[in-house]
């Protein structure tokens, strides 16, 4: 069934693409199967990430970018990530409300996804959905995520170009100097630039941006509802995409590192859950019979033995 759906998705069938995304969301085994099948396929879709704090106007900017790209006859896919309630598991996915005028455009495909507030901020399978979309006959894939810092670092591994959206009066130069947020983006946008304070925000930002890998990240001031102000942003995105290729290997390295650590994380959690000695060690540490460094080393030794045992069995 997956084979057939993939064939249809590759030829631009959006019902098939939509169904495949659902499979990736639902089923972790089939998810891997899909990725293994498509990984070697030529990926023509370039992935662009829009990130930044809630309310700065990411969705509205994407709406303008969509109308600019679609007027050039380009096919664009959009993935909108919104948070999921940690209490009820429910969510309101409301990003697409800003771009509903494109809902019936045959060149545009928009899909909303909810994500749990895990440390990475992005559902682990968002990269798989992006990978799938990159072979689905689309020219560009835009992903919108809330958040910054660590999350933006994570996202930047899977995207060709990362756009960080800010707005005036978000904080002074000390905020801008904080690590994380400003070190990952390829293009900076100060949206709502018609609000007083945009020039000062730009000045703070400019002091804290450095040239990386031969690319000086530009700062672009936009006004979300004014299409003319968004055209320079689209031009810069295209310019960056045309120069990006050289950093691809580096990003793959970052991605593999993250995925490997995730894998170890899951392995470790499973090991602790099934380890009968764990509660005993907790007792020892809580009564100060053992210090926590020794306890951690002992646990790791046990894990190593278990992995070796598994190896022999296989």
């Amino acid at each position, binding site marked *: 069934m997956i084979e057939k759906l993939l064939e249809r998705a590759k030829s631009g069938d*959006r*019902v098939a693409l*939509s*169904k495949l*995304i*659902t499979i990736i*969301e*639902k089923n972790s085994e089939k998810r891997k199967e899909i990725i293994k099948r498509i990984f070697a396929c030529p990926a023509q879709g370039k992935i662009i990430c829009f990130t930044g704090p809630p309310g700065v106007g990411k969705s509205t900017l994407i709406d303008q970018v969509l109308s600019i790209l679609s007027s050039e006859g380009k096919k664009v896919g959009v993935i909108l990530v919104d948070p*999921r*309630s940690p209490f*009820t*598991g*429910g*969510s*309101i*996915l*409301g990003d*697409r*409300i800003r771009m*509903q005028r494109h*809902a*019936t455009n045959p060149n545009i*495909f*928009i*899909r*909303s996804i*909810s994500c749990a507030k895990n440390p990475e901020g992005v559902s682990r399978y968002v990269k798989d959905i992006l990978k799938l979309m990159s072979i689905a006959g689309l020219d560009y894939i835009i992903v919108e995520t809330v958040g910054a810092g660590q999350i933006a670092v994570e996202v930047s591994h899977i995207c060709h170009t990362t756009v960080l959206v800010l707005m005036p009066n978000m904080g002074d130069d000390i905020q801008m100097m904080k690590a994380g947020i400003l070190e990952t983006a390829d293009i900076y946008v100060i949206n709502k630039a018609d609000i007083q304070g945009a020039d000062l925000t730009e000045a703070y930002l400019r002091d804290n941006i450095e040239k990386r890998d031969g690319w000086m990240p530009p700062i672009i001031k936009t006004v979300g509802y004014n299409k003319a102000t968004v055209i320079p942003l689209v031009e810069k995105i295209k310019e960056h995409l045309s120069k990006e290729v050289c950093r691809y290997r580096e990003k793959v390295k970052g991605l593999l590192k993250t995925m490997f650590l995730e894998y170890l994380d899951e392995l470790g959690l499973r090991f602790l859950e099934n380890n009968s000695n764990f509660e005993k060690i907790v007792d020892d540490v809580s009564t100060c019979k053992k210090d926590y460094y020794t306890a951690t080393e002992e646990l790791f030794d046990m894990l190593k033995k278990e992995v070796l045992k598994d190896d022999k069995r296989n």
Partner: protein
Amino acid sequence: MRKRILVAKVGLDGHDRGAKVVARALKNAGFEVIYTGIRQSPEQVVETAIQEDVDLIGLSCLSGAHIPLFRRVMELLKEKNIKIPVFCGGTIPPDDIPILKKMGIKEVFGPGSSLKDIVEKVREMVAK
């Protein structure tokens, strides 16, 4: 996997309080709600339902044009061979309920409906 529900208002009416209250109740009940807001055409609703691969469509209309608008949504779903159940709400006179049900709409929630009742019926509809 959380069930996904599209909540949309069709036609030229801006009364979105009801749709927003229902959307929030469904979120609190653990559903994933895709909210498209006001002034949607039937074509936008159906295209969105396809792209979002939802399990249920909720339509709201308070303008009085619910019969032709909802009918068009049901026709488009049929034309595209999309089998997603539909429920609706709004200022709908009791006499219209049988007409809407005949179109294939599963449940109709008029003014005064309780959220508890809506959530319960929605659970039944997505379970089928």
